[in-house]
């Protein structure tokens, strides 16, 4: 009964999007959120979620923002949410999100992570994070520091185990 596959997570993504737009129909059918979005801000956002460190690269360096965009291309409600979320990030009162300092970006994302789940900032944070971590940790470069083979087979993990 595994709950751990892309299919399951896509179902979770669809369900969360459906629930959000059902509660907020004006967003679903309004003018906002249907056009292009500022990709630099999406890149900056995923790099705040998954920054580079001594062991592994940042998210955008291994294509996370590109793949999130590709998923959104194929899933219109997700595209709408990203457009709305990126628009919100770029209108927090100062310069666009990707031009904020790293400290400012972290403060914004921290606020988003604790905001009302039924509003755009938190839903955007939750669903983009869900996709971003899946894409990121599937990449071998992101797995440095884990007691993992690149793939479970063909070596497996024979005993003895610590």
């Amino acid at each position, binding site marked *: 009964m595994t709950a751990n596959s892309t299919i399951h997570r896509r179902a979770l993504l669809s369900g969360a999007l459906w629930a959000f737009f059902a509660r907020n129909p004006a967003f679903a059918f309004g003018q906002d959120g249907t056009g292009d979005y500022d990709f630099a801000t999406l890149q900056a956002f995923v790099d705040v979620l998954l920054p580079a460190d001594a062991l592994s690269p940042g998210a955008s360096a291994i294509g996370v923002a590109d793949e999130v965009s590709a998923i959104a291309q194929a899933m219109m409600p997700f595209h709408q949410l990203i457009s709305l979320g990126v628009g919100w990030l770029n209108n927090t009162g100062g310069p666009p999100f990707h031009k904020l300092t790293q400290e400012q970006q972290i403060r914004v994302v921290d606020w988003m992570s604790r905001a009302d789940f039924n509003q755009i900032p938190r839903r955007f944070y939750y669903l983009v994070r869900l996709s971003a971590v899946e894409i990121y940790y599937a990449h071998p470069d992101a797995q440095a520091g884990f007691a993992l083979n690149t793939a479970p*087979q*063909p070596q497996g*993990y024979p005993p003895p185990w610590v």
Partner: protein
Amino acid sequence: MGIKGAFDVVIVGAGAGGAAMAWRLVTNGAKVLLLEAGPRFDPAQDYPLTEPGWERAGFAHKPHSTASVTYGDLGRYDPGETGLASWNAVSGRIHEDGARRPVDQAYGHVQGVGGTTLHFVGEAHRLHPDSMALRTRFDQGADWPLTYADLEPYYTICESLIGVAGPADQGARWRSAPFVQPAHPLSPAAKRLQKAGAQLGQNWQANSRAALSQPRENRPACNYCGNCSRGCPIGDKGSADVTFIADAEDTGRLVIREHATVEKIHLAPDGQVAGVSYIHSGTRTYQETPVLVLAAGAVQTPRLLLASASGGVSNSSGQVGRNFMETLAWTSTGLLEGLENSHMGLPADAICWDYNQPDSVSGVVGGCRFNSAVQEIGFTGPIAYATRAVPGFGAGFKHAMRRDFGRAISVGAIGEVIADARSFVGLDPQKTDFIGQPLPVIHSVLTQNSVDLLRFMARQARRVLAQAGVRDLVEEYGSYDRFSTSHVFGTCRMGHQSDTSVVDGNCRSNDHPNLYITDASVFASSGGGESPSLTIQALAVRAADHIIS
């Protein structure tokens, strides 16, 4: 197109029951046609466990490898009952609106040569003998028309062919022969649960597993990658394709037709089954048969019977599709400081049978079992941790991921379901499959007995984890708000009386003497959490002997 007389037996479905039936028949000289709606899987090609990014893939999907179903009444739950809610540390509550939902969008079984054994974890369980007489003992559910003693020789035959590994002590499940392979070593998480269980007076032991602990013939020993349910690319897991099917094909007397979707069972004027029609590569074929065996599972078998004639085939009792029993399941997971490498080892390698006897839980009819579940539920890679167990973002999140990976420890539980009139499989009045046949619609509602047993299962799972040293849980989920189809039973149940059952103790139809059913639909009771594949196979081999005789 019509085909006459080429085969002694036609079997529908190449899963656990169909494969075992085919093996027994062909190794006794019969010629068998096995019709399988799904494809054949190539373990080396189709299972993704050798590739980077493996964790994003579940079990492989191929054309026709997933059956379509619809859902009717799955019951409701009280959103205020937080103690039985499904949740995790990243997403919070999974559902809160009071409507029980299926775990995924699709029915969780595999269509293909090997059936659901292709992605099963591979537990090889015998039923508890007392689980087979619920009606007599508790005036609930139904009795099996055979006993553990009747089935025991067939369990032994199947275990031998599969290469089941397990420990000698099996309690009430007495054995006429030892397991053919020694038990697997306990993984890091399982050892912690065994120790915690012992401190609580519980007996956690090595599970009996359809996975090789030693090389055997042309199959290697398990190398403990922990991902059985994504498909085993090396062949140590005893799925039906590398055991029963492989041996049966070696005889030259088995023909397997993949992508063959049976649309109808045809009856002769004398009440016998005359043949089946099926669609293969866009062509409809009629196949005569002296004997027909249905082994398409507890959802598709009743669907085919109901769709084949007005009122259904083999349905004089009105029991086809009735008595549906779902999987009553619970899982609790925590992160345990000091535990390392919990992703390594064999899934479900430790089990506790202490509460498996049907009268072992106070106030409830039916037992349950507990097992180490960490690999089984997917905590074998970092994506699972990041999406379910480790919240947050940024440098702190990445640090927590490296610190916590390998610390997950899980207790899973599965319990008895008593058949209820509200739970059944019927025909969808509107939706059809690609050949125009009505889809099955599943109705399944939890009884108070199930909720009470589920509450016990959740309480015990938390108790063991707490004893192991887990301070905070990170995920729990169960049947209270999520409908699960891992193990489903009962929709063509066997019985002593033809007015309350569909088949007899030999799996033979009460209405049509040349029709047999050998899948979990014949189970008269679900058992107290035992995984059903070995019992399906034992029943199928026994039924094959009846056909041969």
